[in-house]
């Protein structure tokens, strides 16, 4: 992002004009940070004593990140259970595939549940991934009750003493209360059978300010514990994830960078921030 380097070159703390800072604010908005957070970052940066504008901005952005742990929670005495949720098309199923591959590669026994019984061929999509990666997929009937598939999945995981159980769910707009209730029901099934250790909300990096509503509503229904930020291989900077962290303190835990099962990794604040401000 040439714009940022140009601005940084001009900005010497103290010597920067208001319009320089305005330009910087514009660039942050272009990264989907939103007007509110962009204003906050700029004012924090302006008040920071720092050798360069870039480090001031960097510090301000770091300050907006949550200090909670970004590690996947793991329990030792039973199957660690992960519920994956989000709006339609954000990359939930692909992220489940990536997560199961990552966990399996580390020597874990993983079971996944295809609880998207709604979208056409969603079950087959997850089964294809399961076959490729070599992870058993518990599936029910198309248009069946997702909570009952989850129930079956729990049983399979428990019987096989799996280390991890990952539940893929149907995409749903957070505004549809009946679908959100369905999700709560799925979570209750998991709660009753030992507990859910992670509820991961999948957020597409191209998402605009609506992402904040998504995070708030999903948290209200199923207490989200972490974000998976997908599609970071595109031109979108994914600034909405920072805005969500700032607003809800839910940590970004993983990042998706492509359509392959290996295009995935833990969230790294430094490189994320570099991406936001276009420095290498």
């Amino acid at each position: 992002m040439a714009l940022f380097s140009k601005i940084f070159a001009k900005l010497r703390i103290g010597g920067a004009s208001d319009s320089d800072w305005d330009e910087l604010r514009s660039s942050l908005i272009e990264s989907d940070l939103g007007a509110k957070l962009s204003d906050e970052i700029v004012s924090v940066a302006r008040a920071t004593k720092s050798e360069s504008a870039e480090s001031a901005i960097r510090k301000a952005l770091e300050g907006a990140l949550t200090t909670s742990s970004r590690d996947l929670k793991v329990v030792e005495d039973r199957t660690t259970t992960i519920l994956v949720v989000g709006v339609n098309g954000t990359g939930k199923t692909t992220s489940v595939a990536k997560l199961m591959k990552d966990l399996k590669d580390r020597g874990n026994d993983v079971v996944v549940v295809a609880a998207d019984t709604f979208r056409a061929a969603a079950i087959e999509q997850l089964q294809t991934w399961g076959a490729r990666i070599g992870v058993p997929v518990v599936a029910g009937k198309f248009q069946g009750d997702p909570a009952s598939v989850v129930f079956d999945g729990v049983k399979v995981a428990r019987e096989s003493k799996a280390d991890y159980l990952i539940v893929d769910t149907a995409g749903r707009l957070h505004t549809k209360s009946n679908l959100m209730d369905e999700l709560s029901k799925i979570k209750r099934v998991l709660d009753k059978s030992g507990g859910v250790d992670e509820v991961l909300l999948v957020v597409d990096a191209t998402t605009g300010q609506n992402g904040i509503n998504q995070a708030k509503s999903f948290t209200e229904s199923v207490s989200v514990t972490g974000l998976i930020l997908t599609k970071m291989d595109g031109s979108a900077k994914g600034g909405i994830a920072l805005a969500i962290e700032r607003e809800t303190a839910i940590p970004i835990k993983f990042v998706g960078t492509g359509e392959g099962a290996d295009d995935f990794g833990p969230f790294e604040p430094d490189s994320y921030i570099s991406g936001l401000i276009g420095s290498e």
Partner: protein
Amino acid sequence: MFDSLSSKFASAFSSLRSRGRIKSSDVEEIVAEIRSALIESDVAQEVAKSFGDRIQELAIPELERINKSTNPSQGIFEIINAELTTVLGGQTRRIRMAKKGPTVVMLVGLQGAGKTSLAGKLAQYLKSQGNTPLLVASDLQRPNAVTQLQQVGASVGVPVFAPEPGNGVGDPVKVAQAGKKFAEDKLHNFVIVDTAGRLGVDAELMSQASRIRDAVKPDEILFVVDAMLGQDAVRTAQSFLEGVGFDGVVLTKLDGDARGGAALSIVTLTNRPIMFAATGEKTSDFDLFHPDRMASRILGMGDVATLAEQAKAALDPDLTKKFEEKFAAGDDFTLMDFLSQLQALKKMGSMSKMLGMLPGMNSGAMKKQLDNLDEGELVRTEAIIQSMTPAERHDVKILNGSRRARIAKGSGRAVSEVNNLVDRFTGAQKMMRQMRNGGGMPPGMPPVPGMAGMPKINKQLPPKKKSKSGNPAKRAAEQG
């Protein structure tokens, strides 16, 4: 969609309204508010700025004329409304048909935008208009995209051309080409080519899209965009425009609360119209995009035109007339009337969606209330009423404990639900009687169960310019 836009505009307008004569400094103020509201709604900053500048340019020379009118703020409003309509695409454009052979529509877009679902919706839409579309499965990349299209095609009764299994196997260019040939041979008049999702920055996949384009020479390339898209819309639209080109835009997931500002950026910067809108997961949740309606909706005017159209299609005129006659004759409002009205409402489609089209109903709190309307409750209520005997329906006062238990059993609902319904119906009936005694107009549609929020909703409506009735269905009927 455009929720916060609506409320921002609305508050800007109410302050304008209270001012009477409008000065050019007032216009500047409202333009500044509009700009920041647009940016908050994911509109690109340059687009928000140019839109604001344009309003200023248009409004200031008109101030003298506007201030002479009885309602100056209305004059400003009209300028903004007209300009927003223009920016959103001017006149609605229909699909361009091929001069000879099948009309080819190619769908392109980012991963997860909703292309495959949209392909099904478009197919059903075209089919309902008497066309014979063919779906072509050229997304051979995402696991089971082909299976998904096959299932979608089957559910709308449209054949799917899918010679390759996908999941990385097969050449999408050849499939598209063979699909077109197949359609020509079998005399399909439309071909809808579903393609893989791709990123603007993926040069290789972008060139694949252009090869598909060259192979099938589409009459329309439609760029499918998620209404939730943020600021990246500008870069992505630009790269699709350069990489493959497109003639029109389709907005998906408009049934959520996304503000949809990206759409405004895309049409402004690419000069391509939004042609269709997808508003739900059902294959029928699809319509032509109406810029004028969307503009009114943004401005907090509600999509009255769409509502009126739906109401007209759903409401049985005889039924409405019967109600009015009955009412005028002084007959009492019975459970049977209640049920017919429930059925009419159900026919009108998703109730919350419908109410969302009304003026003032798109603001945050209202939206939440609408979204929480339990549509399943309508179905349950219907089941309960249907389990009653005609005598019971005629006079709910005869419903003693054992009758209620029988009805509960027959409808598979709890006794408490039956009690609840009876209570609410009795309340509605009382209200109807009062209304008549008070000399009010007989409403075409009294309050129904599951719509407990209705009376409150009415209070929050902005001053109505176009309608006389406080009742949504009645108002719709007036406008139809």
